[in-house]
């Protein structure tokens, strides 16, 4: 690991003094919370910050789990395990609790914060190994080793000819599906953005998010109601536990008698960023949710998939995962 200076930020103001491109690949200042991504990538020599600013002291004020009439508010410094184990989150927002419970290991879930989780970096093997020179995410303009290389776990949705890295997270997929918002604090003031606007689309792979320099995520807000109650997160992995998704689906359903009033669909293990399939949602509305209807929606959801050889299997797996998730959510007691 390369040398760096370590500092504990006692409050958000100090953090905002580090007004640099925090979180981006070439940033000379990185914020440290749970450390499960940052320390890992510093050991691999992928991230080379000159300053590491420890912001865990914010956690005392930004780790509450609050459930009110309007929905759920999760402090960004809450740990994954605290939220995954919370009885009211499990009951009223099952997709949120399941997406966290099915991620990583108990040790990592005790360490990792929600804010860091949504900003975790891709597991693309070429990004994580600097001995491969070509990686547009790590070194802008250097090319992409994965497009012609081993790309079994790379993304098929939202990719371009510069980068096919997959967004590895689960919680972010549940958040985009349930139309969460993100609360931010920084030198420009406090602001709120929709979660879907946090991650950038493909184009400039080394720029992953839309945070301002020095800005910190302080909370997530998830609307409550029937869509959140009848929601679930289905994760398909190469092994049963402690593994990233090769396909996943977050769904939320609201029925009016026997027909779908509203539907929410998100896909993980498939896409460049947390992915919502709104066209597929629309195809379900106003009809009974049969397996045939779910299959039609899944066809729409994976319509734009672009594969590169080793990941040719992904669109089929994604469709089947989504169909199963929709059927399971239909049959839930919610």
């Amino acid at each position: 690991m390369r040398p760096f200076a370590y500092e504990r930020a006692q409050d958000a103001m100090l953090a905002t003094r580090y007004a640099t491109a925090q979180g981006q690949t070439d940033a000379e200042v990185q914020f440290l919370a749970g450390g499960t991504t940052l320390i890992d990538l510093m050991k691999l020599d992928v991230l080379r910050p000159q300053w590491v600013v420890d912001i865990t002291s914010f956690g005392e004020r930004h780790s509450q789990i609050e459930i009110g009439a309007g929905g759920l508010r999760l402090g960004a410094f809450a740990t994954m395990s605290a939220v995954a184990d919370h009885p009211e989150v499990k009951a009223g927002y099952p997709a949120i609790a399941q997406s966290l419970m099915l991620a990583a290991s108990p040790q990592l879930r005790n360490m990792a914060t929600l804010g860091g989780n949504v900003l975790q970096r891709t597991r693309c093997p070429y990004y994580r190994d600097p001995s491969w020179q070509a990686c547009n995410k790590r070194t802008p303009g250097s090319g992409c080793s994965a497009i012609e290389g081993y790309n079994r776990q790379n993304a098929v949705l939202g990719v371009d000819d510069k980068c096919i890295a997959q967004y590895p997270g689960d919680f972010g997929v549940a958040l985009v599906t349930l139309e969460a918002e993100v609360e931010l604090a920084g030198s420009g003031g406090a602001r709120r953005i929709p979660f879907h606007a946090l991650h950038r689309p493909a184009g400039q792979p080394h720029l992953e998010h839309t945070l301002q320099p020095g800005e910190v995520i302080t909370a997530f807000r998830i609307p409550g109601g029937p869509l959140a109650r009848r929601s679930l997160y289905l994760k398909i992995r190469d092994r049963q536990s402690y593994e990233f998704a090769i396909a996943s689906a977050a769904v939320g359903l609201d029925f009016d008698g026997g027909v779908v009033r509203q539907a929410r669909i998100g896909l993980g293990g498939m896409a460049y960023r947390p992915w919502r399939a709104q066209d597929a949602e629309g195809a379900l509305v106003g009809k009974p949710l049969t397996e045939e209807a779910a299959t039609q929606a899944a066809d729409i959801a994976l319509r734009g998939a672009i594969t590169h050889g080793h990941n040719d299997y992904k669109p089929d797996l994604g469709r089947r995962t989504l169909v199963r998730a929709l059927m399971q959510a239909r049959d839930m007691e919610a």
Partner: protein
Amino acid sequence: MATPPLPSTLTEPSRRHLIGGAAGLAAAPAVVRAAASAAQPPPPASRGSVEMALNVNGRDRRATMDVRTSLLDALREHLDLTGSKKGCDQGQCGACTVHVDGKRALACLTLAVAAQGRKITTIEGLAGADGALHPMQQAFIDHDGFQCGYCTPGQIMSAVACVEEGHAGADDEIQEYMSGNLCRCAAYPKIVAAIRQARAQMGAKA
């Protein structure tokens, strides 16, 4: 070690910028408190070798270490506590599992400098003051929960936490909540049996 140069944004903080930022952030409670100290310089950063104070197994320990030192290397190389093992050193195997403030965590992905002020428990701190083994340690012996033993300290620390969390009910729950600890010898069935035995003796919530 060379001292990293300060980013220009740090060496020339604009007072106007800071105060303006504080006013703009008035809605965020975290920042309101900060406004009073906006004009004060930040505390000095730690670089190179620094003296650190760690609370390990109930004792305050001091050591001078490079700021890059992981908690795992601090325990093993500086505090002579070699029970915690280095397997992958990148958060994938669980051999380095310790308890930080009572919760299981990976020492290899924790910076020692950031662990100051926390209560750290390692496998060496599990047995009683009289040397009596913790029920989980005894259960691993009783059930032969290992072959080579390299993963065992991490397995035991994780297993103790698994029971204390209330996640040691049915076998499949134990398996799920022990999935962060890999055993190359595949002693998994005996590890599950050991946890079942210790669970009863620990007065489990599960």
